[in-house]
């Protein structure tokens, strides 16, 4: 029995419901127990650290401080989200590196009657725990419906393997953890050199055009290399690639259809779980077709792609199509 503290992070209850559902579904067969940190708060995501360090770190450290209260037997905090994982790990690391910061943060925590001694906890990402603690052999054992014939693009995302504070990952540019896991599930893993390229992060909100290009590269790369779907380990990556795929297509005038599932969902499938139980079908780019390759029927209705807010106020011209514009420019 492996027991860990869980820091779910905001998205697990909203945009990444499917991640949470599928995670819960595979815990029992893998004999893993996760205890949620009580009264956890936002990790500050990718922005806050860029704005004001001390409050940002204090915000993160609060979660660590809370976690220490619950560590009976375990000192490992598991985060399923890459951004959460990185932030928690980062806070722990820099508090140790910079005593000054440690002092300031602990002053802040003290205000809430909390304190955290850096190094007390071991912050790890879900896949790290599954691959290295539970182990690929144990996972293999549980596979009852191998994903044979399903071509998967393993997408780790950019935040997970770097910076690698505790030298956990096989490689920083081309980590193999996700490949190995998918292979263990029987899937056919395509060579996907983009595995650690950026998904655009919150650029979708700040500079959509930049984000679209980044998303395009990832989707196109997977598509050209014949992937049926992409596997991801991070809610934000999934959200960007899934929810913005339609807009990206519109922007470039392309017609990619690349479902993006969480690796836990694929594990669930391989363990013979029912797709519904795994939140399959919640994705916007439907995996129905892709999963048909391994004879998995997705019962849930195919969603109508990204739901847009009803247009209000005055009409506006459609978004400029870059390619179109170029063609016209030529003339």
């Amino acid at each position: 029995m492996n027991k860990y503290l869980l820091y779910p992070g905001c998205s697990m209850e909203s945009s990444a419901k499917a991640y949470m559902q599928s995670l819960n579904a595979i815990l029992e067969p893998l004999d893993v127990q996760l205890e949620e940190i009580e009264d956890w708060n936002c990790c500050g995501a990718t922005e806050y650290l860029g704005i004001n360090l001390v409050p940002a770190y204090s915000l993160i450290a609060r979660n660590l401080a809370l976690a220490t209260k619950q560590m009976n037997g375990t000192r490992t905090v598991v985060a399923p989200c890459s951004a959460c994982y990185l932030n928690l790990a980062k806070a722990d690391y820099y508090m140790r590196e910079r005593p000054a910061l440690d002092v300031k943060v602990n002053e802040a925590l003290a205000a809430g009657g909390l304190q955290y001694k850096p190094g007390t906890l071991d912050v790890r990402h879900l896949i790290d725990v599954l691959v290295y603690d539970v182990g690929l052999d144990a996972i293999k054992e549980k596979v009852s419906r191998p994903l044979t014939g399903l071509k998967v693009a393993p997408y780790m995302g950019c935040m997970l393997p770097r910076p690698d504070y505790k030298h956990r990952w096989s490689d920083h540019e081309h980590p193999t953890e996700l490949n190995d896991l998918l292979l263990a599930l029987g899937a056919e893993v395509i060579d996907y050199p983009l595995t650690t390229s950026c998904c655009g992060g919150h650029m979708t909100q700040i500079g959509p055009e930049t984000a679209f290009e980044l998303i395009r590269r990832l989707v196109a790369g997977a598509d050209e290399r014949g992937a049926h779907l992409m596997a991801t380990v991070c809610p934000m990556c999934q959200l960007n690639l899934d929810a913005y795929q339609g807009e990206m297509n519109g922007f470039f005038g392309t017609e990619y259809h690349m479902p993006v599932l969480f690796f836990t969902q694929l594990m669930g499938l391989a363990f013979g779980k029912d797709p519904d139980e795994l939140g399959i079908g919640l994705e916007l780019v439907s995996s129905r077709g892709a999963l048909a390759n391994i004879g998995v029927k997705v019962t849930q209705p195919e969603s109508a792609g990204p739901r847009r807010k009803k247009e209000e106020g005055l009409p506006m011209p459609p978004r400029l199509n870059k390619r179109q514009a170029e063609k016209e420019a030529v003339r």
Partner: protein
Amino acid sequence: MSEKKQERVGVYVCHCGTNIAGTVDVVGLARWAGEKLKHLGVVVAREYKFMCSSLGQELIEKDIKELGLTRVVVAACSPHLHEKTFRTAAKNAGLNPYLVELASIREQVSWVHTDKAVATEKAKAVVAGAVSRVIENVPLEEIKVPINPDTLIVGGGIAGIQSALEIANAGFHVYLVEREPSIGGHMAQFDKTFPTLDCSACILTPRMVEAGTHPNITLMTWSEVVNVSGYVGSFHVTVKKKARFVNEELCTGCAICQEKCPKKVIDDVFEAGLGYRKAIYIPFAQAVPKFPVMDKENCTYFIKGTCKACEKFCPTGAIDFNQQDQYVDLDVGNIILATGYDLFDARRVSNYGYGRLPNVFTNLEFERLSNAAGPTSGNIVLRDGKTTPKSVGIIHCVGSRDKNFNNYCSVICCMQGLKFAHLVHERTGATVYNFYIDMRTAYKAYDEFYQRVLEEGTLFVRGKVAEVTDVARSEHEKGKLIIQVEDTLAGKQRRIPVDMVILSSGLQPRHDAKAVGKQFGISCSTDGWFTEKHPKLDPVATMTEGIYIAGCAQGPKDIPSSVAQGAAASARVLDKILQKEVALEPIKASVDHDKCSGCRICNGLCPFNAIAFIEDDQVSDINPALCQGCGTCVAACPAGAISGTGFSDEQIMAQIDGLLFLNLLPVEA
């Protein structure tokens, strides 16, 4: 303790121009020593501008003679610089050299402190320490050991070959031990050599042949040193001659066995994995010696028990499947290590895609690729074996000058990159890009070569390559390798599509360098290269007497430097041989048998096996010739039965008290 023996000590304070006098009140210091250290036996204390000058030395010699000094303290620079100078001076004046102590008031005082008062106080303490210590010094005589004129050279690369020839030509015997089936080393794999572009084989082969046929050289290839004992002058070495399964007496090197052998194996040593060899093989045409070796792991007979094709066809019946490894014992006086380097494993830089992207090659692979005797007979083609590249990118500093891998510069890559650029250009007319951090083309005629390659039209991009990928972002990138790099001269990101990428993998210490170092009793630097005695003034000697290093074993270097070092090392060895005997520092440990209770605590402590246990008398004993004088056993003996010359308990404790003398003054007053 010191009061009882009345020594007559002379203290000499050096100004070292202003180096010391600038920060230390040398005159005051000398006066202080003369007055305050009287009770220790100081009879004269002088200061002088340059003690190391002949006049300074004469000053000391004169006092020794006229004032009958029995001990001398020179307060000057570090003993590592001038200890010898002043000891010799004392010797000239008839005083045992080991009764002289240097007090380092330059490196340890004047150069590292600024406040004159403080510096002077510290200098006083240092001098008091030296005076107290020198009183406890005892006269020592250098230990002389004979030098065996035979020499062992480990590693048959160009450096080792050079050393061997120099010594052999001087008329002394050399054992040249090589791990691989043939001597020649990396140089034999190369095609052309920079900057002159003369063919590597053409200039190397004659040397190899000379080494192979020289009456004074015993060549031992396919062999490894398994044990080393002894000390300078008389090392005992055991060499393992791995079974060749070929009788060298009978073999004529006709290579029919190789021809007939049905088993093809990828040759990842000589062909750098780019070509094939047979299970029984001669690594390359010009191999020395010419005898083939059988690779037991891959030989069908050893695996299945049948085949023996080689045996059937061998005209002289030289194949011997029952051959066993042999162990040969050698006695030598000196040892030269020329064990060379390993190539950095480019797969570690995963973002360059070596091992993942077929058309990414390493520098060594390219050497074979461009080599007329190589797998493609010199055709520069892609991994598919036929397509000629239209554009080639050469990436410098792969694994070198990189905090993630090796911090050091691998020295050869820049020139090698230029050489490759020239060869590609000349043979394929392809566009060539060089991606470099800095171009380093020092040494004779190197920069001229750079100019030449520039004129040939090779393109140079200054910037560390971020990534080599096959993920196209646009049509014209499709099917190419895209090199993503920041052009730091143009100040922008560039994506340059090419057909072929060559990685200038850096040089690394041999994977087993540390173990080998331990075996021969020499140390490695943090990078793993063998440590030389002095980085500038003694680059081929090591801290261990009688062991020398040459070539890349000591650090990355090109062929000319390797050859120079090989020659230099043999010059050092010849000097030892011609002296016939060598004087060892008399800093040794010895056991007082009356006090020794034979508890055997010390027995396991000596890495040089100098400590032996005498069963009959139940006491431990130290062989002075083997003892290197580290003093670990002295410090470890529970009975205080082991004493060490030069650094005895008495000397050190006296020095402690001396150094603290100033602190004690108020208490005494």
